[in-house]
């Protein structure tokens, strides 16, 4: 889905985090930004309310979907 924003080009990043070393990373949300650095700043500002031991972001475009709700199986 294209975004109409103030930036010439942006992309969506999924944000993953976990609270303890023994639990797996899970998606906590997403951010939209024109570059990786701003995406990191936005992810930390938006989702830092919990005491995460790890947080990472992944460009949504880098995720390869095998199947999804509503798609052909």
């Amino acid at each position, binding site marked *: 889905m294209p975004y109409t*924003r*103030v*930036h010439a080009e942006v992309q969506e990043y999924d944000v993953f985090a976990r609270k303890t070393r023994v639990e797996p990373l899970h998606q906590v949300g997403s*951010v*939209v*930004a*024109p*570059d990786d*650095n*701003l995406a*990191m*700043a*936005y992810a*930390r*500002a*938006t989702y*830092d309310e919990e005491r995460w031991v790890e947080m990472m972001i992944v460009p949504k475009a880098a995720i390869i979907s095998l199947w999804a709700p509503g798609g052909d199986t």
Partner: protein
Amino acid sequence: MRYAEWCIAAPTLEADIAAAAMGLDDIGHSRVLYGSLRELGTPDAGTDDGASYANVPFLDRPWTDWSEFVAANAVLDSAFTLMMEALANGNVDVLRTRLKKMLQEERYHTLHGRSWMQEVNAGAALERAWTESLQWIGPENSDVDELHRAGRLAHGVRDLRRLLGERLDGKTPPSGLEWGGWEPIRRRTQPGGIDQATLDMLRGLAEKRYMPAGG
């Protein structure tokens, strides 16, 4: 405080949230720094009137354009962070231990400021913020260089100026710094000070309106 004023006025929702988060970070950093100063035997600075309140002129009035936010974020915040790094790597134990979390948080302020600096032409605001940052660091052979020689600061004035330039992607620094009228306590050359409404909020007077009579 100025960051927080943009928490519903930035160009994107994400930038709104970042403005609020960075404002909260910096309030926390102020508390850490004041606590450290108390521990080092320095009494709280007086904030009862605008004239004694120490802030760079860039923060005197609310910003009216996003480019001013970007300039403050990219330049002033970087200058403050460099000074914090110099303190954290100096020989004062209290500061070596207390400032680490602050520097971790400031990393994200730097990322935010630098990215927006690429997105926005902050020209005049950037130059003004840079000039005021250099004035805030101070002239060579003054207190900052003395503290550096004593080991309390890991960097002297020249290093801080150079490192600030590097943080700003090698942009050309402002030339012809004027030191006439420089105040060593407030670390600025311009007269004036923070606006009364902001000063009242900083002193907690805005909240007092909601206190019960006699409270």
